[in-house]
Each structure stands twice: as C-alpha cells, then as structure tokens.
C-alpha cells in the first residue's frame, strides 16, 4: 500500500506541469484597431470640419425615420457641436417589396426639394354631387385638417377621409389612401352606376401601368365578389363599396365609394380620381440636415437641382441596435443648405462615409 501511495505522489509530481498547463485560461487579445468607419470631412460655409464616429464624442446613429409614412433611410453623425444628418427616401412606396433601393446600381443621388406648390388638392367643388353636399371635413391620418378644400404640400402617403355632410343633414365618411410626391406604379378607378331598378354595377377602369391580377369587392366590409366588376341589387340606405386590387407588379391599391340605395344623390365618389397633383417624385432622393452650434441647416428648402451625391460605393456593414441593416454610403457631395431660422444659405462640400439604416 505504501508503495502504491508513493508511486501516486511521484506520478502527481511528474504530471504537475501538465496539470498546470491544462488549467491555463485563454487570454484573448483585444480586437485589432481599425480606422474610423463612419466619417465626414469637408467644409461648410468655408469652415473645414471633420467628424469621426468614435472621436471627440461623435457617434454614428443609423435609423429609419418615417416621414409622412414614407421610410427615410438616414444616418446621423456628430456630437453636441456638429451633427450631420443625411438620408434617402425610399421609393416605389406602393410596392413594399421594392421600397428599399438597389444600392448596387446607385451611382448618384439627387436631392429632394420641398414643393412650394400643393402636391395634392382635394375640394368639395371637384365632387360630382357637390350641389347636394353642404360641407366636407377633410381628415388626414385621422386628424381633421381642412374644410372643403385640402392642400397637401409635403410628400408622403396619407390616409385621407372625407366627412361629407349632405344638405339633408346626412353625414357619411369615405376614406382613401393618397400618395403625394412619389411615383405610382399602378392604379385604377372605381366606376359604378345604380339604375332606377336599384341594380348596382361596378367596374374597374382607368389607366394603369400594370395588369390587375385580382380584385376583391366588398360591400360594407363584406366580400361580395372576386373580379373586375360587380353587380347586385342595392338595398336602401348608404353603403360603402370597396375594391382591393392587386397588380401583377405587386402593387396593391384600394379605392372606396359610397353609394346611395335610396337614389337620393347622397353618394361619395372616389375623390382620388379628382386629385390635382404635380409630377414631383421624391423616390430615392436625399436630404441633408446639418446642425452647428444649435443652428439648423437643411437642404430641401433650397434648390439643389444641380447638386448631387456622387456615390463611390454602398456596402453592407451590419445590424444596428434597432435591428435594422446598415449600409455604408461612401461618396462626395456638394449642396446648399439653408438655415431654418435666418434663411442663410451656406455651401457644403463633403466627403462622407455614413451609415444608412434600411428596412
């Protein structure tokens, strides 16, 4: 027994270095240093500046902002004294699958510009049965905005509801989605007719850039038919007819009308047919906002028609804290920025690597 014990201790002694080595904890060296990933260097109003995310308290904050229900892919780089915000509007807003720009094909980006003319004008007088309508209260995204005449200057996608007060005191609401300032990839008109025999006939018309793949007809949110037309006997009273159409290019559009089963003229036509709109398209355009010592300068309030962002490359970087994919836009730009208070305009020359979060 003693011999066995002695041998055990000797073995332990000989294996001591092995035991020591096997207990070694791994020390992982710190990550390799790198150059600033997000940076901006240039002049603003003749004053040069440099912003590096990670230096002097500067941070890069990529984010997706909703501007009037339109995704704005932006990144904010700066610290308390100087902050640069650059973003790109999404495009193809009626095609959710194609809203994110194809960064691989982008070589230059135009600047978005604020319209000084209304992008959309809706008014009671453009309605066919305006003589039977006492007043129209326009609601934009659920907020009462205008009476009888609605003018929208800012680009976006809006849910507009017309609260129509007829002369006989009847109040009826009709809502439709309206896109202002962005390209429409497909659309249709909802046409209808009610005969004296209270036979309703509805059909889809109007120009379109794509073929309708399917259309669903609803009466008071009850599915009535699938197809491009609908006919049925109308019951007395006011009813809402809604058509949801899906186009082959993926666009999904909805239009609604109010019909009168009493044949007293208290109908509300699809007011989107009567939109007076200009041709401004802000798809994939850029905006810049620069804040310096508390003063805010923006690009969209001044003409930058001749200025562009020259894109060198857009590469995927990673996921930000909000879970959005982040792309690094590297490029150069010249732009004019206007002070939002003093209206002072200063030129901006910039070489930038900025992170844009996208959806």
């Amino acid at each position, binding site marked *: 027994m003693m011999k066995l014990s*002695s041998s055990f201790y*000797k073995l332990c*002694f*000989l294996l001591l*270095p092995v035991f*020591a*080595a096997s*207990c*070694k*904890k791994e*020390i992982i*060296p*710190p*990550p*390799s*240093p*790198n*150059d*600033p*990933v*997000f940076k901006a260097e240039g002049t603003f109003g003749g004053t040069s500046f440099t912003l*590096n*995310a*990670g*230096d002097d308290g*500067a*941070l*890069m*904050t*990529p984010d997706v902002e909703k501007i009037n229900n339109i995704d704005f892919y932006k990144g904010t780089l700066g610290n308390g004294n100087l902050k640069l915000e650059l973003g790109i509007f999404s495009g193809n807003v009626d095609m959710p699958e194609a809203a994110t720009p194809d960064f691989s094909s982008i070589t230059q980006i135009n600047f978005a510009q604020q319209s000084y003319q209304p992008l959309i004008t809706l008014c009671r007088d453009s309605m066919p049965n305006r003589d039977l309508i006492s007043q129209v209260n326009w609601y934009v995204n659920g907020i009462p905005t205008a009476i009888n005449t609605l003018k929208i200057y800012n680009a976006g996608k809006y849910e507009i509801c017309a609260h129509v007060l007829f002369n006989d005191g009847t109040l009826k609401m009709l809502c439709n989605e309206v896109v202002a300032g962005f390209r429409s990839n497909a659309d249709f008109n909802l046409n209808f007719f009610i005969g004296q025999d209270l036979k309703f006939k509805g059909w889809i018309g109007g120009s379109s850039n794509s073929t309708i793949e399917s259309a669903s007809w609803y009466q008071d949110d009850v599915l009535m038919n699938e197809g491009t037309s609908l006919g049925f006997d109308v019951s007395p009273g006011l009813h809402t007819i809604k058509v949801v159409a899906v186009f082959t290019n993926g666009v999904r559009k909805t239009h609604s009308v109010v019909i009168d089963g009493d044949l007293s003229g208290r109908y509300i036509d699809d007011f989107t047919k009567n939109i007076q709109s200009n041709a401004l398209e802000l798809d994939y355009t850029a905006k810049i906002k620069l804040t310096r010592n508390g003063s805010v300068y923006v690009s969209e309030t001044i003409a930058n028609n001749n200025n562009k962002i020259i894109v060198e490359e857009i590469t995927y970087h990673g996921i*930000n804290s909000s879970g959005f994919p982040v792309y690094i836009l590297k490029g150069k730009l010249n732009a004019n920025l206007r002070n939002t208070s003093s209206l002072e305009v200063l030129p901006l020359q910039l070489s930038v690597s900025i*992170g844009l979060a996208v959806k």
Partner: protein
Amino acid sequence: MNWTDDEIDKLFQESASKVDVPYKDTYWNEMEAMLPRKKRKGIIWLWGGGLSFLTFAVAAATVIALSPVEQKPAGTGKTTLHSGTYESTQRQTEPETGIEKTPESHLSVEKQSEVTGNRVESTSNNTVKQASNTGAGTAPSGIITENSTPLFHPVHEPEATAVNEESTDQTILALPLNTLDFAQSDYQLIPMASFSGLKKKHGRIYVEASAGIVQSPVTPGSAAEWLPTAGIGAGYQYRPQGIGFSGGIALGGSFGNSLEITRRSKVYNFGATNYEQNLRYNQLYHVEMPVSVDFRKNNHVFSIGLTPTYLATTRMRFSQKENEAVVVEGSYWGQRVGLHSFGLKPAVSYQLSVSQSWYLGIRVESQLIPQTDAEQFIGEPARFPLSGQITLRKTLKY
C-alpha cells in the same frame, strides 16, 4: 586452509605491488551480465526523467573527458564479483561461486594453484586462466597465473593500458581446461588486491537548492531591475580530483513585477471602443538542465557549464478594460504572452566542499537567448541578463 585477515591483507598488498593486470571492458561486461539486478532506490525512480537526460550528458562528457584513458568508470553500481571470468558455458558446468563486492571491500577469493604437470602455456605474463572449483562451495573458483602469482585486478590503474590486451584475449580463449590437473593443485585462497583506494566512488547523485537574484529580461525604468530567484534541483556529479562533470535537472522560479504588457486598441464602429489589457507577470518558473565541467582541487570545485532552460509555467495578473470599465480581472497560470520558452545560460560557479557530502557555492549565469518579445513589454529589453545565486548541494549515496 584457513586464512586470517592479516594474512589475506598481506597477500593482497604483496600482490598489488607486484603485478599489474590489464583491464578489459569485456570482463566487466560478462560479469555484470551474470549479476542479479539490484532494485533501484526510490529517488532514482523519482528523478528518472531527469536522469535519462543525465545519462546522455554524462556519457557524452565521459567520452570527451576520459577518452585518452581506457578506464572503467567507478560507481557503476553494486556488483557481485564472481571469481570466474570465463565463458558462461563453462560456468554452467562449474558451481558458480563468488562473494559480494561491497563498497568497502572488493575482496575476492581465489584458488591459488601450483600447477605442476599441466602448466598452461601463455604468451603473456599477465595471462589469466581459470581453474576448476573443487571446494564444495567453500573454495570458490579462482584465477591461476602462470607464474603462480594469481591476481585479478578488476579496477586497474591507468598505467595498465600498456599491457598487450590482444594477446591476453587469445590466450584465454585458447585455454584448454582439460589440461588443468586440479588434483595436483595445492589450493589456497589468495586475496586479489586491496581496491580500497581505487574503488572510491566519485559519482554521486546530488540535490541542490539555490537562491539569488536575476536581472529582469526587461528594464522598465532607467536602471536594471533585479528579481529574487530560487530553485531546487537534482542530478548526478562525477567529481574526482581534477576534471569531472555534473548534470541535472532543476526547477527555478523568479519573482517580480517588472514584466508588464499593456495592450490597447481602439476599435471604431458606430462609436469607438477602447480596449486595454494589462498583463503583469509576477512569477516565472523554468525547468533547467544544467550541465557543467568541474575542476576539483581538494575541497574547491570550479565549474563552467551550460544550462538549457524551458519556461514551464508562469503566473500573471491580468485585467481588461473596455472604455475605462474593468470587465475582466484575475490571476492566470500558464500564460506565455510575449515570452519565449527556450533559453540557454552559460554559467560559472565555485563550490566549497564543506563536508564529505555538502557543497556551498556561488553561481553566476547569463541568459543568451532573449526571453521576451521586446516589442510587447514596457521597457527596454536587457541584453544577456545576469543572475547570481548561492547554492547548497548535498550528495547522496545510492
């Protein structure tokens, strides 16, 4: 015939003064092959790993140091000395007898034979012949010389090399045993020789402890920093008067805080993260295998040697900060960040034999191979850092 001790001593002394028998390795090898192996002591087993290296080192040193002289190294272990030196087949027919060869006495018993009728012809005065054994266990086989001066000299003096060994071999191999007429022999026991002066063992296992200071391989400040060091070891030494050698294995540790690495990196992303790691070695342990050539004069031993070293393990204090916040902190064993594993240290030393088995000495070494990656450590690397140690060595019998 009964011999008194005085008579045996007298015979041995007379024999030793008259005859010089050449030494042959083959004799020893044959005899050793017949000997039962003695169980090794525990300490040998314990240091078996180290001694395997020592065996090689000692053998190499032996070849170098002793190559001019054919000499059987002393201290090859306890042996049982058999009186016969002949072929094993012959021994099988003869009762194998012998007496234990102890460190104190190499007394051997021989039969002295007055060969009268069948004298063995010999071509050499030093020819050794074997006679039969008829002593029924009490009278062992002996060695008969032609001139009736039986001597067997297993450990020889250096001048024995002058003997014509080749002729001796031939004579032995041609020995016709049947020509010996043992019936006519007058047997008597003759002591072979007194080996008391020759069998002194100079080879010893030793254990050693050391303590001293070692120059830090990195100089953090303007002046060299010295670290305390200590070690223990064991090995084998062969130290006759004159040139000897020793070799062994040791574990040495050095202690201090001069070896410090600070690693920083700034990683940019949406912001920046400042990483800082601090690695401070406070204990280094080396396995060392010192080999030295020793010159001994009386009680003084001067040595010059070479010590390969291997970094066995370390102990370090580690901390890591991210943006000034400590995220990891602790002591770690076995890290080698910035350190080199192998080294080579030339050494000179002096030892004073304060008693038969104790040596007190001083040793100075220098590290030839850089032990650190200079770019990683804070400070300037030291070129050939020195170390000085006081040593205390104890030799052990085995």
